[in-house]
Each structure stands twice: as structure tokens, then as C-alpha cells.
């Protein structure tokens, strides 16, 4: 790709998705817009792991699917390594698909049960017309080993594998094209605790070895803390806070981020406490108000909440007062 080296691996500019909900019966059909994702900016830096965190309905998965062009955005631009891929058709998009791959939570439904693991891992090479049958088979076996499965697994079928092993196969298939960007949507959520750590370590190792950039979509803040460099928190279809991972865990500003952190069970039975909960509507109504003087970059005072910088590389949604 001809993009300048300075361009981030992936950049979303004002990306948005509105679904039209059909309501009423056949005769009185009405359409109501649902803003799944409001105009959102997001930058995945090269060789970085960005955690996109939120609860169900926050829009995190839709955002990831738009980045991959698996869901078409209602507005905004998608830049992959500096190239605008928002409006590309199927043929023009194909070379970019090589640069951007995905792993889902449920790898069982993502792996064709009629294919051997070697065929599954080699399939992207077939689709993109890379190599001949022999070299593809050899590379597939190499990749099985690279994700921690013995070469003998090449002749096995998906149903013979455990959940963790299937996720390894899904990762091998996603990375065999050596993409620049991997979107991982809850890849560890269905796994047992002891296996979860294996997959997190594998992703870290591969990321470092391959100069890969990962958009890691998850509801699990503990996993995000161990894996990600930066974190963006989504709430009701928009990003409410974004910062370096440790800043989120030690110095979160937005009430929703704080509520999310407070909900993580504490691994210390001596520190049990009675929690006071506020529902999402109350958090939404409360929001955050900051004086213009408290910002690290100037922003116009406004009654409308906006993402503002409170420290270098730390943005939070707030109403800015003079």
C-alpha cells in the first residue's frame, strides 16, 4: 500500500450507524431510527492493542464490523493504513481485506465442520490466490504450530477440538495472510479461565512478532487490562472515555467508566462491600461537567457533551462550562 508510514493502522472518522426499526403491523407500518453508533472517532495506532469496551447494546461490535466493512456505515470514513476504504466495491476492497482480518467469540460457528484444520487455515490463501497447493499446505501447518497446535492437528476436524484449540485455529486462519490489523470480537469470552490466559498470551506474542495492530472488542475489563495499550469505553452508541489502559484503570473520569470499573468483582474476600448501583439512565443523565480551565486542550464551552482532552492522550465526554 502506498500510504505514508505515519498513518495509523486503522482510523475511524465520524463513523456512525443508524438502523431503521420497523414498527406496527402491515397497515400502520412506521420506521423509527435507532442510532446504534453515533458519529465516532477512533484511532488504532500501529503495533498497538486498543481495547473497545462496553456492555451489550453499546455499539462496540457494530463499530468493529464497520471498521472491517462487514457492516456499511451510515456516515463517516474508514481509513486502513491511511487509505480510505469507505466506498470501495467488492473487487477494489479485496486487496484491503488481506490487510484486515477478524476473530469472533464463537469460533465453532466460524469454522467449516466439513474442512480439516489444514484446509481451514489455508483457505484465505486460496481465496487470495497465494501460492500453490503444496506451499499453502506447508504454510497452514506452520501456522498451526505457531499458534501452539501440533502439525498432526492438520488432518483433524473442528468438532475434535476444545474451545481454546478452536480459537487458536481461528487466530491462525486470520493471521496467515499477515494482516496489518486484527479485529478480535470477544475472542476469550467463551473460554475457561485457564485457557483464557493462554489465548491472551498468544495474542500478545503474535502482536509483537508480526508488528500487528489489534482492535480488541470486549466486555471483560480484566482481560483488557492485561492485554491492551489503550482503551476506549463505549456507552449508548458513543465513546465516553479514551486513554492509556492504566489511566482508565487508575484515573477514570467519566461516571460510566467508573461504574463499569466498580462492577468488577474484587478478588479479595476481605474487601467485600455493599455496592450502591445507579442504572444506566441515571448515569446518562448525570454525565460529566468540566470547567474549560480544567482541560489540557482548549474547547469551546457548550451545553452539548463532547469528547474533550483532560490530559495528553486522555479524552472524556463532558459538558464544558466557561
Amino acid at each position, binding site marked *: 500500500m502506498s500510504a505514508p508510514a505515519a498513518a495509523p493502522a486503522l482510523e475511524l472518522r465520524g463513523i456512525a450507524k443508524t438502523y431503521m426499526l420497523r414498527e406496527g403491523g402491515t397497515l400502520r407500518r412506521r420506521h423509527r431510527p435507532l442510532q446504534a453508533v453515533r458519529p465516532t472517532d477512533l484511532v488504532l495506532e500501529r503495533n498497538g492493542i486498543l481495547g473497545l469496551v462496553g*456492555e451489550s447494546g453499546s455499539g462496540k461490535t457494530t463499530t468493529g464490523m464497520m471498521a472491517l466493512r462487514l457492516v456499511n456505515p451510515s456516515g463517516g470514513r474508514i481509513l486502513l493504513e491511511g487509505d480510505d476504504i469507505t466506498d470501495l466495491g467488492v473487487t477494489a476492497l479485496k486487496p484491503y481485506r488481506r490487510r484486515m482480518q477478524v476473530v469472533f467469540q464463537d469460533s465453532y460457528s466460524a469454522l467449516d465442520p466439513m474442512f480439516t484444520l489444514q484446509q481451514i487455515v489455508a483457505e484465505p490463501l486460496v481465496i487470495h490466490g497465494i501460492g500453490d497447493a503444496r506451499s499453502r499446505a506447508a504454510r497452514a501447518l506452520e501456522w498451526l504450530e505457531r499458534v501452539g497446535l501440533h502439525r498432526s492437528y492438520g488432518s483433524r476436524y473442528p468438532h475434535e477440538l476444545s474451545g481454546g484449540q478452536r480459537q487458536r485455529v481461528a487466530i491462525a486462519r486470520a493471521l496467515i495472510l499477515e494482516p496489518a490489523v486484527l479485529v478480535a470480537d470477544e475472542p476469550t469470552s467463551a473460554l475457561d479461565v485457564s*485457557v483464557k490466559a493462554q489465548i491472551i498470551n498468544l495474542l500478545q506474542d503474535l502482536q509483537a512478532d508480526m508488528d500487528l495492530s489489534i482492535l480488541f472488542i470486549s466486555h471483560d475489563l480484566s482481560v483488557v487490562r492485561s492485554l491492551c495499550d489503550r482503551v476506549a469505553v463505549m456507552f449508548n452508541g458513543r465513546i465516553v472515555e479514551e486513554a492509556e489502559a492504566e489511566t482508565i484503570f487508575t484515573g477514570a473520569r467519566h461516571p460510566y467508566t467508573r461504574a463499569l470499573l466498580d462492577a468488577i468483582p474484587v*478478588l479479595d474476600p476481605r474487601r467485600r462491600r455493599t455496592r450502591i448501583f445507579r442504572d444506566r439512565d441515571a448515569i446518562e443523565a448525570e454525565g460529566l461537567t468540566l470547567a474549560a480551565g480544567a482541560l489540557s486542550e482548549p474547547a469551546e464551552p457548550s451545553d452539548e457533551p463532547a469528547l474533550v482532552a483532560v490530559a495528553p492522550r486522555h479524552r472524556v465526554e463532558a459538558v464544558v462550562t466557561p
Partner: protein
Amino acid sequence: MTAPSAAEPLVEIRDLHVAFPQFEGTVHAVRGVSLHLAPGESLGIVGESGSGKSVSCMAVMRLLRSPPAQISADRLALEGIDVMAAGKDDLTRLRGRAAAMIFQDPMTAFDPVFTIGQQIAETLRLHREMGRRAARDEALNLLRRVEIRNPEAVLESYPHQLSGGMLQRAMIAMALSCHPRVLFADEPTTALDVTVQAQILQLIKDLQAELGMGLIMVTHDMGVVAETVDRVVVMYGGQVMEQAGVIDIFERPAHPYTRALLASIPGQEGGRRRLTEIPGGSPDPSDPPGGCPFHPRCPEADARCAAEAPPLLTGADGRQTACWRVTP
């Protein structure tokens, strides 16, 4: 039913074995589990998938269809009553009044064609022989009790109209409807959003304290254990590995599996880092390894661990461990 004496455990499982014969071979889900729960006590059963934690609870509730399940035990009792020998009527009474159970997925626990109100009322009429009117009023009370803010509306709702958290609250209301002396909660928060999860755990804790109920919390999540129970049973490969008070489990874990499990939990320290992983995967329940089920993954295993299963030994402090390398 005779009134249980104070000393009698609410739940008693001694040397439970459960197997499911299948075409490809028999699945040995539970292989010699013993545990008990005293009145008012809270016990966490923690384990990964296939550890046998849910099947053990289903067995003592007699919720496993047998055949196909092959169940054997030295003793399997609720409120001192042997559930293996109990007839159908006794079991129905025990399930409502002695013990109730809530599950991970409340959507499958409710019938989609009846309203929440109809389903809670049905339970009340069956177990507490209430009239229509009284059952409806009591259902409303129960929904208020689980902190549902608009109980009238929820009463008239069908399951699909409610959120996961709301439905889990309704299931807890139904479970509480007959004042059970023990509540089995099988991964009650696993399918819920993080913030809702914390709310449901708080609700279960509050209700347990308020009603003096026994609680068995079945979970894979050590965080849930740390937040909710007094005592912990750690299961692996259909067997009990360790049993101890919750503070001992977290501060002085004895069994190598418990230690490895705690070490592998992400997010305990700040900053991006590699995690301590447990190599390999869970044992195949249709072909369990000989000896200790954890030995193929255990960093401390030796020849004896592979050859001979360690017995579950009880120490002076009541702590139990099944490991050749640990002296209780």
C-alpha cells in the same frame, strides 16, 4: 417430612458418581464428590467447564433423568431426606420448599407462552396451595422483594419482553416463592452485562442474609466466589481438589490447581503483561487420566500422581485437599 435437627446438614453429598453412557463411550462427569452445606451457610463450587460442578448439584436436586444418567452415592440428601429413595411427591415438596435452583440462562427457565405472573403464581398454587388472588398478590410481593421497580408491569410481561437482568430477578423471585432453605445458583450472572452482574450478586447476598437461607453458588469465576461465599469447594475433572474457607482459598491456596487457577486470572496487576497460564486443556471426561485428574497439567506432578489418585484428606482446621504433594 420430619423437622430437620439443627445439626443436620441441609445438603449432603457423599461419594457421588455420575456417568452418562454414550455411543462413543461413557462420560464420567462426577467421580467421587463429597460435600455438605449447613443451614444458613454459603458455599461456592468453583470449577471450569466439565469439572462436574453443575452435574453434582443437579444430582442432589434429582434433576438428572436416570436413565440415561447413572447415579450412585453413599448418601445424597436434602434436609436429611435421602433423595435417592424419595418418591415423586416427596421430591416435588423438597424441590420447592427445601431447595430451589436458578440457572445461567433465565430465558430457557421460563415458558415463553405464559406471563411472568402466571408462572410465579403457578408455583405458588402448586407448592403453597394458594388461591388465584392470593397467589397474584404474593407474586407481586416477590417481584418487589427482588427490587423490580415496576412489578405490576413485569407481572403481565412475557419473558421475551424483559431484559436479561430483569428476567434473572424474576427467576430469583420464583425460586424464593416457597421460602427454600437452600438456593442453588448455577452461574446466575455469567450471561449478564458486567454492571447487571454486580447488581444480581448483591441481590443474592442480601436475600441470603435476610432470609437466613443456605446458598450454593456454582461458578467458574473466582471473583464471584470472593464476593459472595463463606466456604469454597474447588472441582476439577469430576473431583474435589480442595475445600476451605474463602479467605484461606485466596490467601493460602494449597492445591496446585487452585494456585494455578488464581495465578491465571487476568487484570490483577496494572500494565500490559503476559499471564501465568496453565498449559494444556481440561481432561476428556470420557477418558479421564489415571491418578490425579490434574497431573498432566500440574507443574509439581511426579510418577505417583500419574499412577494413584490422591485421597481427599481433612486437616485439623477442616480444610480438605486431594494432593500427594500437600500435607493437610
